[in-house]
């Protein structure tokens, strides 16, 4: 049986939720885990709600279904709280991480009776400060890594730096900004 840690991402097409799920798969793979990272595919357009998933485990993963009872949920766009049942199946002892400027107690009434832990981060503020542009997925990635405690923060940052250097080999100037977004996000999530 699968004893994997299961994470569900909710975002809108174009915000990079799928990329963030694949980056989380990458970074946890690098710590020796078995991983899955996959989006739910459909006729996606910019701005349409999308879902992506991660499984992270010490054992090989055989199950190939979507995730219905996640340990953690990441909401990349808080306007989805109105249209998508983001806490559906979310385990009580898990947590939800929401990209929002609002206080967590202000958000709780929107979560359809969810009783577990809520974390927030203002990913827009972090992204604008670090990158000068709004890319919410990088801060959200750091936030979920911190909240689920899947790996030590220094290890996470070291792995991500290596990964960014590889990914942005042709434009190394963006590595520092992305690293800043990660370190800021690790502090800002609460």
């Amino acid at each position, binding site marked *: *049986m*699968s004893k994997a840690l299961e994470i569900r991402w909710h975002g809108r097409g174009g915000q990079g939720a799928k990329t963030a799920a*694949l980056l989380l*798969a*990458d970074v946890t*793979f690098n710590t020796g885990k*078995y*991983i*899955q*990272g*996959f*989006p739910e*595919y*459909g*006729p996606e357009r910019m701005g349409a709600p999308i879902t992506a998933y991660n499984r992270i485990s010490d054992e*090989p*993963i*055989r*199950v*190939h*279904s*979507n995730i*219905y009872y996640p340990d953690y949920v990441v909401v990349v766009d808080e306007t989805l709280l109105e249209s998508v049942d983001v806490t559906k199946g979310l385990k009580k002892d898990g947590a939800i991480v929401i990209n929002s400027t609002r206080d967590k107690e202000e958000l709780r009434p929107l979560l359809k009776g969810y009783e577990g832990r809520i974390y927030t981060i203002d990913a827009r503020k972090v992204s604008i400060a670090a990158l000068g542009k709004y890319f919410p997925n990088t801060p959200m990635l750091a936030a979920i890594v911190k909240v689920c405690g899947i790996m030590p923060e220094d290890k996470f940052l070291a792995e991500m730096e290596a990964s960014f250097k590889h990914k942005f080999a042709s434009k190394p100037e963006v590595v520092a900004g992305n690293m800043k977004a990660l370190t800021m996000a690790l502090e800002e999530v609460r």
Partner: protein
Amino acid sequence: MSIRERLSGNEAVSIAIRQINPDVFPAFPITPSTEIPQYFSSYVANGLVDTIFIPVESEHSSMSAAIGAEAAGARSLTATSSCGLAFMWEELYIAASDRLPLALALVCRALSGPININCDHSDAMGARDAGWIQIFAEDNQEAYDNFVQAYRIAEHPSVRLPIMVCQDGFITSHAVQNIELLEDDKVKNFVGQYEPEHYMLKKSEPMAVGAYGTPAFYMEAKKAQLTALQNAKQVALDVAKEFAAISGREYGLFEEYKTEDADFIMVIIGSAAGTAKDAVDALREKGVKAGVLKIRLFRPFPAEEIAAAIKNAKVVACMDRTESFNGHNGPLGADVRTALFDVEKAPKVLNYVYGLGGRDVTVESLTSVFEDMQTVAETGELGETYRYLSVRE
């Protein structure tokens, strides 16, 4: 030492193709094709392979060009998905009847309509009578391993038939998961150089390919094709043994997961087999003797071997990820039932249609099939034998 990686199924197959470095790869590289020609074309552009990549205007042309190249004596392949395979239809039969051992990387997806891009097996299953070898994968690892073994099976002198290497659309093709790759030289040595005995560019032996088969010869040609296809069973086993020696991973005609003492066996193809194994483990903990038989080689169909593996079960459930509109059986259900027909005290057989057009397949939904099998065993009543799983009424 193998290489620990994390890749999507599409990336994994592209890497296998790069390692093989085939001669000619014609492809229609836009929808409904897959990322496989896209990744591969970057290897071509970066000089990692010396394959001739031919972008063509349709799948009918990509298969035609692969046939032409293979007939000329070049190791060829193409890749497609869904209605792209449907558009290759007549060429599929030509590749097989001309005995051309080319490869097709197929990412299995639904056929329209309603318009749908997601996983099911209706494309591959529709092509099951075309005379190709069809081999299926549960995950990215098996998609990679099957592709590495594909040419060795197809090109074997006793076979010489095209091979369709199938994986599940999106579920494995686009999901990133752990994988163990082999080193480039290991794959190259394993697959070897293509040295066809007969080919059109052989100066010393002028020949025609695709000649007219009059009524005096047509049936003999078909019978010879069948013999060659049946030979692929033993060759697939021999190649798998050699592959195990370089990879440590063992393959057969099918995989038996806890079937030996099983009362209830699910026969299934593709990614859902992994999910079924999780269901089996949970049922085993409750004392239910459940098992899974996962098909690897679907054409040729290993009928006797499958019958021997499942004949002692009480109930068998065959899982078809396609609707063949037979109204009584899906393709897998029909083949398994036929295989069991002459077995004394054969198990009862249920046949399910599941996962069409990307309908999600879960541990819970597959567990419900095992529960249905238990009910049949307890009551002795088979009920409707052709059922739909996870469908709204």
